[in-house]
Each structure stands twice: as C-alpha cells, then as structure tokens.
C-alpha cells in the first residue's frame, strides 16, 4: 500500500534540521525537549533499573536456593527485597511505559511533539534524579528495609531509625511528581494534537490505553504521595498520623497505599495491553477485532480498579460485609480483561499469525497472563485469600501479572518499535532465543511458587528450615530465575549489537497499521514535515494509507511543512479534529533540568534535615520555575 514516508527535498530538509536540531554534545543532552530523545532515554534509564533490580532478585534467590542459606544475612535480604520491589514498580515498570508512550504518542497521533515539551523533559529529569536519590541509599549504606509497601508502624522512626526509610518515603513523593506531570502531558497530547481525520473512535488502542492509564495516575498517585508524605511527617516532624499509641491508625496507611497500589497494577497493565493490541493485529495481518469493546474494556478496567484495593487487606479483620464488596469488584474486573483476551484471540483466529519475535512475546504474554488472571480471581475469593495472602502463592500470582503480563509485552514492544526508534533492526535469531529462554525459565522460576505458597511458605522470609520441605522447589525456582536473567541478558546483548551492527530498519518493517510507520526510521526531529491525514482507524491500511493533510486558512496552515519550519504544530479541537490553534514547540532549554535539580536538592535537604540545603533547593527550583513561566513567549519567538 502507499506509504508516504516523510522525505522532504534536501534543501528543505536542511532548513528543517536547522530549526529543530539540538545543541551538539552535553548541552544538547541537558537541554533537549525532543519527545523522541526523551522517550528513548526514559526506556534506557528504566532498563538500567530493571537489570539492577533483577540482580537483586538473583541475590535473593541464591540465598533461598537451599534451606538455611548463608549467602545473605537477614538485613541484606530485607534491604534487597524492599529495593527490588521499589525499583521494579517505581523505577522500571512505570517509567519504561512512560518512555514508550513519550516516544510513540506524537508519532501515532501525527503531531510534531508532545503538548508540553518542556514538561516532558522535566518529568524525565525528575524520574532520573528520584531514581538516583533512592539508589544513593546503597552508597550511604542505609537502605530501605521495610518492604516496597513500607507498612507502619514498622517503618516509623522508633522501629526504623536511620535514613533508610526516608530515602524510600521522600523518593516515592519525588518520583510521583514525574509520573503525574507525565500523565497530564499524555492526556492533553492525545486530546489536542490529533492529525486530521483521527476522530476519537480512530485513536490507536495504545493511545487509548495511555489515556486511561494517565487518568488513573492522576487519581491514584495522590494517595501514595499522601501516604508517603504523612509517613515522612511522622518520621521527620514527630506527627502521629500512623502512630496507634497516639491516636493514629496503621490501617489508614494501608488504605492510602493500596488505593494507589492496586490501580497501579492496572496503570502498568493497560499500556501493556495497548502494546499487545498493536503487535497481534500487525503480525496476524488483520485489524484488531472488537475495537469498541476493547476501548470500552480499557476504560472499564480503569474505573473498576479503584474499587478493589481492600483485597490487599483481607487478613486485617475488616467487617465481612465491607470485604465482600471488594471481593465482588475484584471478580467483576475479570470481565473486561476477558473481553481483551477474546478480542486478541479473534484477531489471530481470523488472521494469519506470523511468529516474529514481537509476536512470540505477545503469545507468551497471553499464556502467562491467562494464568495470572485465573490466580487473580482465586485470591479475590475472600476465604481462599486467608490462606494465600502473604504466601508464595501471591508472589507467584503477581509475578505472572507484573513480570509476565507487563515485562513480556515490554520486551515484545522493544523488538517491535526499537527499529523505528534507532533505525536498526534487532537480530531475529537472538530475539527468538531470548524469548524461548525467558518463557521456559519464567515457568520454572514462578510456577513452583504457587505450590510453595500452598505448602505454607510465607513471603519475605530470608531463610527457612530444612524440615519444612520447601527445599527442592526453591532450588527449581532459583535455577529458573538465573535462566530468566540470562534470557533477558540476550535481549540486552541484542540491543547493544543492533545499535552497532543491526541491519538498517525500513520505515515500516512489519506492515504496522498506525501512523508511526509512515515516517522514517528513526523519525526526523520534526516527525512529519507535512502533518498526515488519516482515512480510517488503521491509518496505514485504510484508504490507501495516510496522505499529507491539505493545509487550510488560519491555524490549519500549520499542517503544511511551513508549520514545521516555524517549529510549530496544529492544535486540534473536539471529537472531529479540526485545527483551532497553533502550538509553538519550545526550543531546547535548561530550565526543566534546573527545576528538577532544585527538587533533588530540596529532597536531599529534607533527607539530611539541613535547612540550608533545603532552602538552596527551593530557591533553585522556584527560580527556574518562575523563569520558565516568564520566558515562555521570549523563548519561542
């Protein structure tokens, strides 16, 4: 079919490049606002945390491989399991999906950048600094050891003296800023920067999934920010929000934490399903079945996920009537998940699946998530949860969901979209090897944990006695974990290899259906010289593919390459996207990194309780922020 790759004539290309190019070297690195550089950087940074947290898991598995293990002491083990969870959730899963969304949303929507490019840069810097802030706990030797959930009163000042928990509490508040501003950016971008012809019922499913995720972030993250803020207030200033002896409540903390914590699972899961909803149709050579059902299900999941948090508290002795409401909601959420599942199966059923690496990861995801979903229904059964809760059964369940149903799609997405991002194909052979090792090792690493839980093994124990009969299965789990780690390492090797030696990627290597495939690999800074117009839900497949949109009078003039030359992009309005204004895209600026650095200094001041440091951070951050607001116009024109 006709694909209009954006290849402007050399002279115009040069003029565009002059308008859009970043400064060279480090200044460019620090000042860029290009959503593609930021998105890729998000992905690489979060993968660094992924491998760090993965190595922590391997150290823990070495300790648990045999009864009475002597590899790690209890303190080290507790620090590692706390930071493994914290890093995987806050510093890998959440930001890596934000990275893909950052990179792909403007390309899928047919626009030249995110709605707020400087905010976008800011959210990356905050993520990076918050990640370094939390990681610094290892350098200082005072590592959070209260679990990734940091339940009070174990984590109050009396029970957890030292800086460890402060690294956690302040870090959670810090990184929440990044997630929240990122969400705002995604929502505004999806609603205001759509290409002509892209009505809301034609939005790519990945965009829908990111929009649903972003709304969830906006409603859920304040709860965990509040929990961590009150915890730090108790720790630093001696308040008693969570102090049972002084009129506080430890259960209040659990409510706040899980009011975010359970939606968070779906915050991670929804974009992953969005990725799958692109990979499966592309490799089945068939449009996604039941688009409206899929989108409705995504939105339904976003809503229902706010009514299930108490199933993390089934053993706290809350009234049975209250708990049955949450048990029912936890069951109901399986219905929209079922719709997604059958939409994917129907797509493959009517298509002709081709088993390239991204598709293998998608199929692995289906088989793993199916089991994770089934055990999820099981643990929502109140009485069964009294046995399963806080046992290895739950560890198995949520790794099937968070590792199987989120990490597998992320790896699939890496193989699917990285060629677009880097302009280099990944090795198919290495990719398949990586998939098969990961898939088989995954089962060995996590399936036996179900059995261990049923056999009475509690979570978060650093050792267990020989006589308890858990040794053989734990050895299998450890072997599986090591193999799984090696499988992920194969993909790391593949990515490094492809950046140097990979075959150059064509514009549309897989025959995908959304607009990102219409531009070059990698895309130019401006994404599209002429904004494309789409003729259907499947921009690349419908009506002979996208064509340059016809510019019109007023704001619609920005659709033409002239808009790109002016470093601008059209703003659209309403359900039918019509250009209603022109968005000037900010030039490279140091302000985002300065504000983020100010925040980092501020949080460090809180951490070490040094008023001077705190004030320096405040002055730096506020100063940069005021300049940011002040300089909008001057910066742009």
């Amino acid at each position, binding site marked *: 079919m006709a694909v209009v790759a954006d290849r402007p004539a050399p002279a115009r290309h040069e003029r565009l490049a002059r308008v859009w190019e970043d400064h060279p070297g480090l200044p460019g690195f620090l000042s860029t606002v290009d959503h593609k550089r930021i998105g890729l950087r998000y992905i690489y940074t979060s993968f660094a945390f992924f491998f760090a947290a993965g190595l922590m898991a391997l150290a823990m598995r070495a300790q648990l491989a045999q009864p009475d293990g002597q590899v790690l002491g*209890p303190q080290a083990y*507790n620090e590692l399991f706390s930071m493994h969870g914290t890093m995987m959730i806050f510093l890998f899963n959440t930001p890596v999906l934000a990275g893909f969304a950052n990179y792909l949303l403007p390309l899928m929507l047919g626009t030249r950048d995110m709605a707020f490019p400087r905010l976008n840069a800011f959210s990356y810097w905050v993520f990076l600094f918050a990640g370094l802030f939390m990681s610094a706990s290892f350098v200082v030797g005072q590592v959070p050891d209260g*679990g990734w959930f940091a*339940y009070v009163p*174990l984590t109050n000042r009396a029970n957890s003296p030292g800086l460890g928990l402060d690294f956690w509490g302040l870090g959670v508040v810090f990184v929440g800023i990044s997630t929240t501003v990122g969400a705002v950016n995604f929502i505004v971008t999806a609603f205001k920067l759509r290409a002509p012809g892209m009505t809301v019922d034609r939005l790519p499913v990945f965009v829908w999934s990111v929009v649903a995720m972003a709304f969830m972030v906006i409603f859920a993250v304040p709860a965990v920010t509040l929990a961590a803020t009150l915890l730090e207030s108790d720790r630093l200033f001696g308040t008693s929000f969570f102090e049972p002896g002084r009129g506080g409540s*430890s259960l209040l903390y659990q409510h706040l934490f899980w009011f975010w914590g359970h939606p968070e699972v779906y915050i991670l899961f929804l974009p992953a399903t969005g990725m799958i909803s692109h990979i499966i149709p592309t490799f*089945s*050579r068939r*449009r996604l*079945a*039941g688009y409206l*059902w899929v989108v409705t*299900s995504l939105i339904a999941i976003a809503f229902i996920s706010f009514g299930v948090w108490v199933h993390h508290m089934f*053993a*706290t*002795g809350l009234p049975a009537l209250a708990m049955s409401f949450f*048990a029912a909601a936890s*069951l*109901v959420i*399986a*219905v929209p998940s*079922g*719709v*997604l*599942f*059958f*939409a994917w*199966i129907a797509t493959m059923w*009517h298509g*002709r699946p081709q088993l390239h690496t991204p598709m293998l990861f998608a*199929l692995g995801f289906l*088989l793993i998530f*199916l089991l994770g979903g*089934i055990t999820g*229904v*099981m643990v929502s*059964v*109140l*009485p*069964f*949860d*009294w*046995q399963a*809760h*806080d046992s290895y059964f739950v560890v198995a369940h949520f790794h099937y969901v968070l590792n199987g149903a989120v990490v597998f799609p992320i790896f699939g997405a890496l193989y699917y979209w990285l060629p677009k991002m880097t302009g280099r194909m990944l090795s198919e052979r290495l990719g398949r090897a990586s998939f098969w090792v990961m898939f088989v090792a995954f089962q060995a690493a996590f399936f036996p944990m179900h*059995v261990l839980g*049923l*056999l*009475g093994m*509690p*979570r*978060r*124990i*650093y050792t267990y*006695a020989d006589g*308890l*009969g*858990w040794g*053989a*299965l734990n050895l299998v789990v450890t072997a599986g974990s090591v193999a799984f780690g090696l499988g992920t390492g194969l993909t790391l090797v593949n990515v490094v290899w492809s950046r140097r030696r990979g075959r150059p990627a064509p514009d549309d290597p897989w025959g995908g259906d959304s607009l990102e495939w219409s531009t070059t690999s990698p895309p130019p800074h401006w994404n599209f010289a002429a904004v494309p117009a789409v003729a259907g839900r499947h921009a690349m497949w419908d009506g002979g593919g996208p064509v340059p949109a016809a510019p019109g009078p007023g704001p619609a003039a920005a659709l033409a390459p002239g808009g790109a030359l002016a470093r601008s992009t059209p703003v659209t309005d309403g359900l039918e996207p019509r250009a209603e204004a022109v968005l000037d895209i900010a030039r490279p600026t140091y302000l985002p990194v300065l504000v983020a650095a100010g925040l980092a200094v501020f949080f460090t001041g809180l951490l070490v309780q040094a008023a001077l440091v705190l004030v320096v951070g405040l002055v730096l951050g506020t100063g940069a922020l005021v300049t940011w607001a002040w300089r909008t116009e001057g910066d742009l024109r």
Partner: protein
Amino acid sequence: MSRRRLGWAAAGAGLALGSCRAAPSTLDPRSPEARRLASAWWQMFALGAAVYAVVAGLIVWTLVRRRAGHRDGGADRERLFVVAGGVAAPVAVLAVVAFITVDTTADVGAASPGPALAVEVVGHTWWWEVRYPAGGRAGEPAVVTANELRIPVGRPVQLTLSSADVLHSFWVPELAGKVDLIPGATTTLRFSAERPGTYQGACAEFCGIQHANMRFLVVAEEPGGFDRWRARQGGPAAAPTSELEARGQAAFMGAPCAGCHTVRGTPATATLGPDLSDFGTRRTLGAGLLPNTAANLARWIVDAPELKPGVLMPPIALSPAEVDAIVAYLEALG
C-alpha cells in the same frame, strides 16, 4: 507419550511430593475450617484448570490452523465471539466463583460451633505471647506461655489477637487461614483441631529483621491431656529439684535474665521477653529457631544475636558453670 517419559514424570511427582511431606500444607487440612478452605481451593483449581485448558487451547489452535489471512469481513462473527467468550463465559464462571466465595465464607464461620476455649495471642518482635485467661471451666488462674499454642482436640478455640509493636500475622496453614495482629486493635480467629498433632505456624506479615524466625507450634492434645496441662500450669513453676538446678535458679535471678523474663512463683516477673514458666516442655527456642536442647539453650543464653541476628535479647556474660546451671534450671521448668 512414551513409557520412559511417563516414568520420568512419575519420578518427578514422587520427588516433589516426597520433599513436601513435612511441609505445613494448606492442602493437608486438620480442622473443619482448613478443610473447607482446601475444598474451595480444589473447586477453583478445577474451574481454573478448565478455563486455562479451553482458552490456551484456542490460542494454540489459532496458530496451528494455517489459513489464509484477510483483513476485512467477519466483523459480526468476531463481535459475537468477543461477547460470548469475553463477557458471557466469564460472567458464568465468575457467578460460580462468587457462589464459592459466599458459601465458603459462611461455612468457615460456622464450622466449629459451640462454646470455645478463649486464648489471647500477642505478637512481639519476634515471638508470640500466648495467654490463657483466668476462669474457664474449672476457674483456673491465668496462664502465660510463648511460641506454643496448646489446644484440646475437638474443642473450638477462639483466639483474640493483638500486637505489642508492629504488624504481624498469625498463620497455621493446616488449621486456619491467617489473620493480622494489629497494634491498637484486636482481631479474632476461630478453629478446632480434628486430631492430636503438632502444627507449624508462622508470622505471615513482614515485621522486621527476624520475620523469618517468628515461627510457632500449635500442639493439639486429647482434651484430658490438655486439661491436665492447663491445671498444672495454674500453680507456681516447678521448683528446683537438684543442687545444680537450685544454683541455676539463683544465677537466673541474679543475672540479667530476670530483668526481662517471668518464671511464675519466683521474683522474676518481668514481661519484656517470653514467660519461661513452662520452658522445659517447649519443643523449640527462639520462636521456632532451634530445637530446645540443652546445648542449643546454652549457645542461645551466651549469644542469642549470633543465632538470631537482630534479636532483642543481648549476649550475656556468664561463666560456663553458671550457664550450665541456668540451662539445667530452665530445662526442668514445666
């Protein structure tokens, strides 16, 4: 499948089961409550396995039947498939699961009717205080013990649980589901053991550095044996019966021991650590850490943090002779 492969499978299953014989399994229930929970598990396991087989089968089938792909048409059939498979079927299955939930919850609540033995359990970092309140059938005085919950077989037990410090969770997989111990609140748990035995219990809520070694035992005895134990524990702890034990008692009272522990009927009445009045009868020390033998106890007294890093009991400077005497005294208690 070849015979050889079947043989391997059987050997693997045998290995797994053999190694798990000793495990405190939720699937080896020894109370009406745990039995009901296990049956709920098996019902859901059957349902879950069926759903997995059908859906995974569909996925595999889409891959093996190689048919010509096409991009359009069949939208109505697709929609029907999505609605039937993704809405109707899950609703039907979930209705069954909802029924299992309600049915099991009600059954578990009513599984051990009748008057119950009331016991209070208090969680400490990292051990369990077990209190039998005064009164009961024969008006016995209160009894306090640690890390072992003795109960009569066939009689319901009603636990009232609370915590002295951080969150804990009480879990005896063979006897009941778990319930949290929450500072500033109380929770309850009711069950009855069906036959005599020793059941492994553990703390299931992360509670700090020694969460892993916060274990306990439930010892279920015939009612006669339990009543005799209960009556015996009403009085003062066993007095020393040898010169060595007497020296041990004197050393215990003089050393830091009495600053944290209680031995009923002696000047030692502190409550920071476990009550030791029946220590000699306990099967483990350090909350399930080690078998309660004289050698282990001697090591424990001298340097508990070496055996259980983070434990609140400090190393105690005693001469070897004093240690031997204290060990003899403590092992004779009960």
